[in-house]
C-alpha cells in the first residue's frame, strides 16, 4: 500500500531557489516530491497484527459499546481548518440551526419520517493510537421532543428556525406572527403521533477519529486538525446535510471510502490472526462473479477455528503479517474451493469479508464486533483513509 511517503527531499531541499524565499515547510516538501513523481513507494510488506491495545487503559469499554455491532459507512475526510475542541457547544448550536433551515427548505424530506434532529457534539476519549493523534469526537443526532397536538397555537416546542436564530426559548414568540410557518408546523405535528417514548433516541451517529495517523500529521500545519476517518450510521440524507455543514464551516472534503479486494484480503488475514476468546460469528467471504446477464455471488463460510488453525500453520513471525502470508492464506482457500467445485475464485472479485472481529464490505461499510481489537481495525481503516486523501 502506497501510504507512507518517504521524506526524501530533505538534503536536496536547500539547493532549490524556492526554499530560500519561503521556509520549506513539510507540506511544500511533499508537494515537491509529488511534482517530481519520485514518490514511488513500495508496498510495506509487513504490518503489525492489531494487538489488544491501549483502549482498555484509557476508556471504559461500556462507553464505546455503542460503537460495536452497528453498520458504519466510511468516509475519508481532509483535515479540518480551525476546529477547536472547546467550541463544541457552539458547533452544536450552529449545526442545529443549519439542519432546521435545510429541512425547512424541504430539500431533504423523507416520506413518512420527518423527525427533527437535535445534534450534540462530544469528544470520545481514548480513541487514539498514539499521543500525537487528535481526540476523536462524536456527533449524535437525537430525536427532539415531540410537538404536542394542539389545534391552533404554536407552542414553544416547535423548532422552526427563522434566519439563523437558534435559541428555542425565543422562537415561540417569533413564530406566532407568521402564518406560513404555522401551516408548516401543523402538518408536521399530525404525522407525529404517539412518539413520546422516542424522545432522545439516537437517530443518527457520526464520529471522526484518527488512529496512528502520523504520516498525515507531520505534513499538516498547526491550524488544521487531522481526523481522516469518518464513520456514519443513520439515514443518508442526514449524513449529506451534516457533511455539507462541515464542508462549509471547516473547508474540508468528504469522500466515500471504498475498500478494494486487495485490502479486504489483508483485513481477512489480520482479523483471522487475532485471538478471540469465543467466536461469535463464522468466518465468511463473499465473491462476486462478473457474468452476464446478472452477476453471481459465491459465499464461502468457514468455521472460525479452522480458519485460525490454517492461519497458524502459515504464520511465522509473531506480531507481524507479511504480504506472502496473506497471499498464501488466500491461495489455500482458493485451491480448496477449486478442488471441490472447479471454480477459480481468484478470477472473481472479493466483495465482503466477515470474521468474529469485524466485517467489511467493499462499498465502505464496516461493522466491528469485538471491542478488544477496535483500535487495530480503526488503525487499518485510518491508513486507507489517509492513502485516499493523499
Amino acid at each position, binding site marked *: *500500500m*502506497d501510504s507512507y511517503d518517504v521524506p526524501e527531499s530533505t538534503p536536496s531541499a536547500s539547493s532549490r531557489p524556492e526554499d530560500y524565499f519561503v521556509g520549506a515547510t513539510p507540506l511544500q516538501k511533499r508537494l515537491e516530491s509529488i511534482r517530481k*513523481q*519520485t514518490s*514511488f513507494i*513500495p*508496498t510495506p510488506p509487513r504490518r503489525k497484527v492489531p494487538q489488544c491495545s491501549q483502549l482498555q487503559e484509557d476508556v471504559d469499554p461500556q462507553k464505546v459499546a455503542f460503537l460495536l455491532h452497528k453498520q458504519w459507512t466510511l468516509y475519508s475526510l481532509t483535515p479540518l481548518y480551525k476546529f477547536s475542541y472547546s467550541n463544541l457547544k457552539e458547533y452544536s448550536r450552529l449545526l442545529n440551526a443549519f439542519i432546521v433551515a435545510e429541512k425547512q427548505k424541504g430539500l431533504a424530506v423523507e416520506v413518512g419520517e420527518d423527525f427533527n434532529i437535535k445534534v450534540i457534539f462530544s469528544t470520545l476519549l481514548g480513541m487514539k493510537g498514539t499521543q500525537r493523534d487528535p481526540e476523536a469526537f462524536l456527533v449524535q443526532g437525537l430525536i427532539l421532543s415531540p410537538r404536542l397536538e394542539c389545534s391552533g397555537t404554536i407552542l414553544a416546542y416547535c423548532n422552526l428556525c427563522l434566519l439563523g436564530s437558534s435559541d428555542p426559548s425565543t422562537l415561540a414568540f417569533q413564530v406566532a406572527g407568521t402564518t406560513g410557518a404555522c401551516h408548516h408546523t401543523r402538518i408536521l405535528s399530525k404525522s407525529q403521533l404517539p412518539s413520546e417514548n422516542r424522545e432522545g433516541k439516537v437517530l443518527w451517529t457520526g464520529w471522526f477519529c484518527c488512529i496512528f495517523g502520523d504520516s498525515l500529521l507531520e505534513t499538516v500545519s498547526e491550524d488544521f486538525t487531522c481526523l481522516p476517518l469518518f464513520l456514519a450510521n443513520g439515514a443518508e440524507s442526514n449524513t449529506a446535510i451534516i457533511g455539507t455543514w462541515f464542508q462549509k464551516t471547516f473547508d474540508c472534503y468528504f469522500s466515500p471510502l*471504498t*475498500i*478494494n*479486494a*486487495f485490502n479486504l*484480503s489483508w483485513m481477512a488475514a489480520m482479523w483471522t490472526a487475532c485471538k478471540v476468546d469465543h467466536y461469535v460469528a463464522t468466518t465468511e467471504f463473499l465473491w462476486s462473479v462478473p457474468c452476464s446477464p446478472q452477476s453471481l455471488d459465491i459465499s464461502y463460510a468457514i468455521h472460525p477455528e479452522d480458519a485460525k488453525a490454517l492461519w497458524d500453520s502459515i504464520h511465522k513471525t509473531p506480531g507481524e503479517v507479511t504480504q506472502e502470508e496473506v497471499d498464501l492464506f*488466500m491461495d489455500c482457500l*482458493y485451491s480448496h474451493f477449486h478442488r471441490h467445485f472447479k471454480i*477459480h475464485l*481468484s*478470477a*472473481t*472479485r*472479493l466483495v465482503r469479508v466477515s470474521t468474529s472481529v469485524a466485517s467489511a464490505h*467493499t462499498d465502505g461499510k464496516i461493522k466491528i464486533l469485538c471491542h478488544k481489537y477496535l483500535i487495530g481495525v480503526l488503525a487499518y481503516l485510518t491508513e486507507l483513509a489517509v492513502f485516499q486523501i493523499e
Partner: protein
Amino acid sequence: MSVLRPLDKLPSLNTATILLVGTEDALLQQLADSMLKEDCASELKVHLAKSLPLPSSVNRPRIDLIVFVVNLHSKYSLQNTEESLRHVDASFFLGKVCFLATGAGRESHCSIHRHTVVKLAHTYQSPLLYCDLEVEGFRATMAQRLVRMLQICAGHVPGVSALNLLSLLRSSEGPSLEDL
C-alpha cells in the same frame, strides 16, 4: 516443443505475427479486432492463447512479439501469466515480450497491487504498458501502439531493432526502480 523460441522458424515475406496471452478471452478478442483494423504496410497475424505452452500440433508462423495481458482485477490472470512465462525462451526477452496491465482504472475492483505487476515486468526486463481494454478509445490507441511495436520487432522498420526499442523504453522509467 514446449518452449517458444524466437528464431526457430523462418520468417514469411512481409508478415508480422503477434501472440496475445491472457485469461480474458473477450478482451483479447476485442484487442485483436482493433489491431486488425489498423492499416499497416505489412500483413498482420494475431494469435490468441489462454496460456502457454501452445499446442504443437498446429502449424503456425514465427512469432515476433508476445504480449502478456494481466487483468488487475483477478489474481488468476497473474498466476496464469507467471505459469506461462516459464515456457518462453530467454532470448525472447530481448525486446520481443511486453506486459499489458488492464483494469487499473477501477481501483475498487483491483485485487492485485500495481506494484506486483511492475516488479514482474522489471524482473523480466520487459516494458509494461497500462491500458483499460474495456474502454473503446484506450483500446484503439493501445492497438496502434502494439502494431508499431510489432512492426519493429518483425524487422520491418529500417534502422530500429527490437533491442533498440527495448533500451529506448527502459531509459524513460524513473531511477527509483533500482531500489526494488
